[in-house]
């Protein structure tokens, strides 16, 4: 394959990564924005989402699409309920103290991961995609007879991957509508701006916190359900999305939702492109160092606003 088609392929793969990443990072960003809690166990919500999807699709016989649809509804719901429970049982009792919640969520991370290891086992397990047609992509090139379309060998994408991109975009629009247009979103924004004043105006801040923590985990789980037909479910799969989500949330500005989406696109695309052309380990070293430097020198993120 020549450079042009190769690059197009890298961009498409990068877009798939970016879609999943924007969902996961959006969950992390929402939790940090509203609750000021850094949820280190966020990657495990993603992992559990994938494992739950594997479990649900295994229960349902018949066409893979039926199992997939039920998994896409059930996995985020179960994960959200688990997150609400851990908020009530652990985080709330710590009064959302930043240092102690980080330590506690590290503990939750290991509990989730190791419980999965004990029950689900150490193997990676696949989930069948609901549909998976290969779509060859055309490429325009100048030949001796002028411009012509042709189909380079290897330049293709599956219909499922296109579906992932579309689904993620739809979900993000839905979240944006919920936050900006509904009463629930208004309560969240009020709590985010000033939780004490919100409390004084009769907003049940404790409930808002629990719901936001649940939604954050559910978003990670939803991202995982979408990714699991492409990438298998494994008990250690939470580490990478956690790191990438951190990177995205930091670059996008802690707690800024549009910033998160832009940063997810940036990171997803560059991750796709860099790992096609360079060593993925080197790409990760550079990315983590860059992010550390952004935090050190521009603590509000590249797109974050200065404090009022």
């Amino acid at each position, binding site marked *: 394959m020549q450079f042009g088609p190769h690059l197009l392929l890298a961009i498409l793969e990068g877009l798939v990564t970016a879609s999943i990443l924007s969902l996961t990072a959006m969950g992390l960003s929402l939790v940090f924005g509203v609750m000021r809690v*850094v949820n280190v166990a966020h990657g495990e919500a993603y992992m559990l989402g994938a494992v739950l999807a594997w479990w649900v699709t295994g229960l349902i016989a018949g066409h893979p699409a039926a199992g997939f649809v039920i998994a896409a509804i059930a996995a985020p719901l179960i994960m959200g309920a688990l997150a609400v429970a851990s908020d009530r049982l*652990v985080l709330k*009792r*710590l009064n959302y103290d*930043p*240092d*102690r919640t*980080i*330590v*506690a969520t*590290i*503990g*939750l*991370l*290991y*509990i*989730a*991961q*190791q*419980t999965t*290891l*004990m029950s689900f086992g*150490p193997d990676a397990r696949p989930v069948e995609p609901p549909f998976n047609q290969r779509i060859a992509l055309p490429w325009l090139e100048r030949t001796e007879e002028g411009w012509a379309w042709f189909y380079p060998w290897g330049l293709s994408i599956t219909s499922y991957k296109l579906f992932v991109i579309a689904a993620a975009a739809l979900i993000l629009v839905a979240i944006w509508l919920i936050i900006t247009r509904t009463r629930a979103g208004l309560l969240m924004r009020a709590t985010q701006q000033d939780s004490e004043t919100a409390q004084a105006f009769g907003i049940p801040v404790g409930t808002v916190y629990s719901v936001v923590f649940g939604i954050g985990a559910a978003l990670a789980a939803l991202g995982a359900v979408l990714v699991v037909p492409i990438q298998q479910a494994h008990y250690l799969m939470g*580490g990478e999305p956690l*790191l990438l989500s*951190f990177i995205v949330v*930091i670059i996008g500005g802690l707690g800024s939702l549009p910033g998160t989406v832009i940063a997810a696109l940036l990171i997803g695309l560059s991750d796709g492109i860099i790992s096609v052309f360079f*060593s993925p*380990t*080197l790409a*990760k*070293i550079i990315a*983590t*160092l860059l*992010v*550390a*430097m952004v*935090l*050190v*020198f521009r*603590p509000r993120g590249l797109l974050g606003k200065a404090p009022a």
Partner: protein
Amino acid sequence: MSERLRTDALHLGVIALLVVLFLTLPTYYAGNLSRIMVLAIYAIGYNLLFGYTGLLSLGHAMFFAAGMYGYGLTAQLAGWPALPAFALGILAGAALGLVVGALALRTAGVAFMIVTLMFAQSAYLTILYFGTWTRGDEGFVVPGVARVVLGIDLSGETERFVAALILFSLVLLVSGRLVRSRLGRTLVAIRENEERTRMLGYDATRLKLIAITVSAALSGLAGAAYALLFGYVGASFAAVPYSIFPLLWVLLGGAGTTVGPLIGVFFMFYLIDTASGITLAYMLIAGLALVLLTLFAPQGIAGLVRRRVRWLP
């Protein structure tokens, strides 16, 4: 008894207890003691920063690994003898601490934790990237020549114990003096109220940088000692769990106490040792311990004792 005498007496008592344990316990447990003491040095280094200065780092594995690879790589690739390679390990830890500290101290709170986590992650990935020399996750065995100090081969059980005991005793006694010194008290002042400490005319940033460097040097010493005494160097010691462990040990034993780290390592070591006999998922214990400790006993074991015995250093 003055405070300093009491502190030294307590520490000498702890050291004597370790010797008695070594002499009376069966070989398997005696062997574990050496490992516990080396890890306790690491925990003491971590505690200096977390317990006394109030800075929570999530990336101390990079300092441990700096010591380990500083010693291991010079011994393996350059063929250095044990002592200079060991000294280089400590130096590598301190130097990395100085650089990372200078950068990370521009942030505070949650950002500080994430920055240290990120630096440690890139350090871990760097070790993997240079797999040709570091042998990555697989690691390498330290050559036998580099494990002989002053003509004594440290791979024997008794020799190893004595070496670990000497190092641990030194670190414990010095740290006991350090936290009671002017520097130590100022660090505690920074932990309690940084603004006020600054207002009293202390250069808090410089003092915190000193704390990180000393903490990293001790972690580097522990890493180098681990490689020297147990003869193995591997990337898993640079990975995230080894940044979490010292936090766990110090929380369990008691943050801001000199004997807390040892108590924490001791308990966690046997807890995980027992758990790994039962299940593969022994890190579950670590997770449960972290959650339960933050919920119910944020001061740890030594912190609970201190409520009764107020002079506990």
